[in-house]
């Protein structure tokens, strides 16, 4: 169960990126899952072929993913019109995900890989449990980044600009906020977090280009459950879902575990369509 909380933290981070992009752009980035895998492959490439360790490798992968996010916003997301924007974005980002998956398959094939480092298999003995080091590191990173994200949004001028652009675009324009730039950077941040997620995920699971589907379905479940646009919601939902996942895996059967949390998602959404923490009202622009 502690495992659940720890991995929950990492999922929370990736989900936070997804929900941030939705909040600022009204766009559901289906490619988030495969981008995490891309992050894993990048870390893999650096550690195997360049000899750079996993953690230091982040200094490279994070900026790279940030640039990728910016590029995608500029090339595709910006072109989406306001009508049916969210639904269109699902199709567009799904297509982007396919392209990325195709490229990765072409380069790496379908074999499974896993990242390795000295601390991946060691663990800390605490409170009677064995906590794998990598989970702790991942969790620590995730928490640090989430706090950083929160700080940025609520305490900095840029963060205010982000919140303003999402609440009322016209007014933001007229105040002198460069809304396009704000959106671009927000998407960049949303994608950059996948670099971190990719590293941790890749170290704890075997992955291949196809794993993206499984990931995005979990991330979507988390984000929708927590309420789209709510970062706090994403965090809460992530932990909730992963704990359930773990509990079911242990008590019932590992293969049924993922099923249960989709069922939970469906149940929650039928009763409360805006998710646990989401807003019911449609945003006025």
């Amino acid at each position, binding site marked *: 169960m502690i495992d659940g909380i720890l991995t929950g933290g990492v999922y929370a981070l990736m989900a936070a990126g997804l929900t941030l992009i939705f909040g600022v752009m009204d766009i559901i980035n289906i490619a988030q899952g495969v981008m995490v895998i891309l992050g894993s492959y990048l870390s893999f490439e650096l550690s195997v072929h360049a000899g750079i360790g996993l953690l230091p490798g982040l200094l490279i992968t994070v900026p790279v993913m940030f640039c990728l996010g910016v590029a995608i916003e500029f090339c595709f997301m910006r072109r989406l019109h306001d009508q049916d924007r969210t639904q269109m974005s*699902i199709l567009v980002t799904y*297509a982007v995900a396919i392209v990325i998956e*195709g490229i990765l398959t072409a380069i790496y094939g379908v074999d499974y890989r896993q990242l390795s480092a000295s601390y991946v298999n060691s663990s800390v003995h605490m409170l009677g449990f064995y906590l794998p080091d990598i989970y702790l590191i991942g969790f620590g990173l995730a928490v640090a980044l989430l706090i950083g994200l929160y700080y940025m949004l609520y305490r900095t001028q840029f963060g205010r600009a982000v919140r303003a652009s999402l609440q009322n675009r016209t007014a933001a324009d007229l105040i002198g906020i460069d809304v396009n730039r704000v959106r671009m950077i927000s998407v960049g941040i949303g994608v950059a977090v996948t670099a971190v997620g990719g590293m941790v995920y890749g170290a704890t699971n075997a992955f291949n280009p196809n794993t993206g589907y499984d990931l995005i379905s979990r991330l979507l479940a988390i984000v929708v459950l927590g309420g789209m646009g709510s970062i706090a919601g994403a965090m809460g939902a992530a932990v909730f879902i992963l704990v359930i996942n773990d509990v079911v895996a242990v008590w019932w059967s590992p293969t049924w575990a993922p099923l249960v949390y*989709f069922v939970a998602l469906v149940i929650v959404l039928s009763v409360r369509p805006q998710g646990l923490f989401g807003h019911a009202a449609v945003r006025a622009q």
Partner: protein
Amino acid sequence: MTAAATAAGPASRRSPARLGAGAIVCLVLALFPVVITDPASTSIAFYALVFMVAASSWNIFSGYTGYLALGHAVFFGSGGYALSLLCSHLGVGGGWPSFLLLPLCGVIAALIAVPVGLVALRTRRHTFVVVTIAIFFIFQLAATNVGFTGGTSGLFLPLAPWTGSSFNTPFYYVALAVLVVTVGCSWFVRRSRFGLQLLAVRDDEDRALGLGVKTWRLKLSAFMLSAFFVGMIGGLYFDFIGQVYPQTAFDPLFDLSIALMAFFGGMGTIAGPLLGAAVLESLQQYVTFTFSNAAIYLIAYGVLFLVVILLMPRGVVPAVTDYLNRRRTRATATGGPPERLAGVAQVTP
């Protein structure tokens, strides 16, 4: 302006050119396997027909109501499993006898659509999309784990009695028959009161409700109708392949493909999904045969779609129709009338 004149509407829909093109297409489809007999080509044609049916019937729901359902593989796979189970429990052999059970597969899929719809249709817009995706994964996981579906190795379907190069032909014609029925139904819906209400729901569901449209019943009916045809063609597809197991029965790429095809051709139109499926599916099959490299077709697919969405956001068919219309009316086009005239001119009796 007499009432008769205004009731007639634009005549361009029934232009001779369009009817002629339609007739040619029908002729080609009907004679294809007779003219081109090599199994590879007829297989590709068969798959294209399957997807044309799937995309068209997806369009009946999602194209007309605007609710993007990304979980239709549920019905496709269920059709396959249903046929397999029916054949083994009723002792039905392969080939023509199994075809007779196809409508029953469709009905089973439509029945499955009832609980799925009851759950999913309570939500709107993008939440709806996510719920359909979630339900899809539930089915996929369930199929892997539950006994009667044969787990990961799946179930078999009875082998058809034909051999060699004539194996594909009956499948082709049955698929064509299903396509005719599906398109006919799609056309009927579009012209009917039912279809008008669906479109109204797409534009403004709450207002439609306020005008007396029973939106709940409407959406569920369209959903079931859509599931019926997908279920039927799913049965046929797996009958052709001979085996159904979770990965192929519930394939996320299927969900996306039919949406992309309908979208590519033009959502909400009748010809759109047909065009999209014909082009994209043939392309996919051809690329897989020639390059036998999944990666390349994935990249090509994604890139093609991105290009369409950016350049022709409403799909190919509407873009082409608009272009032709603009060329035709360019000479007679005038700017919009001043607002004042519109209110004043008609007022004086």
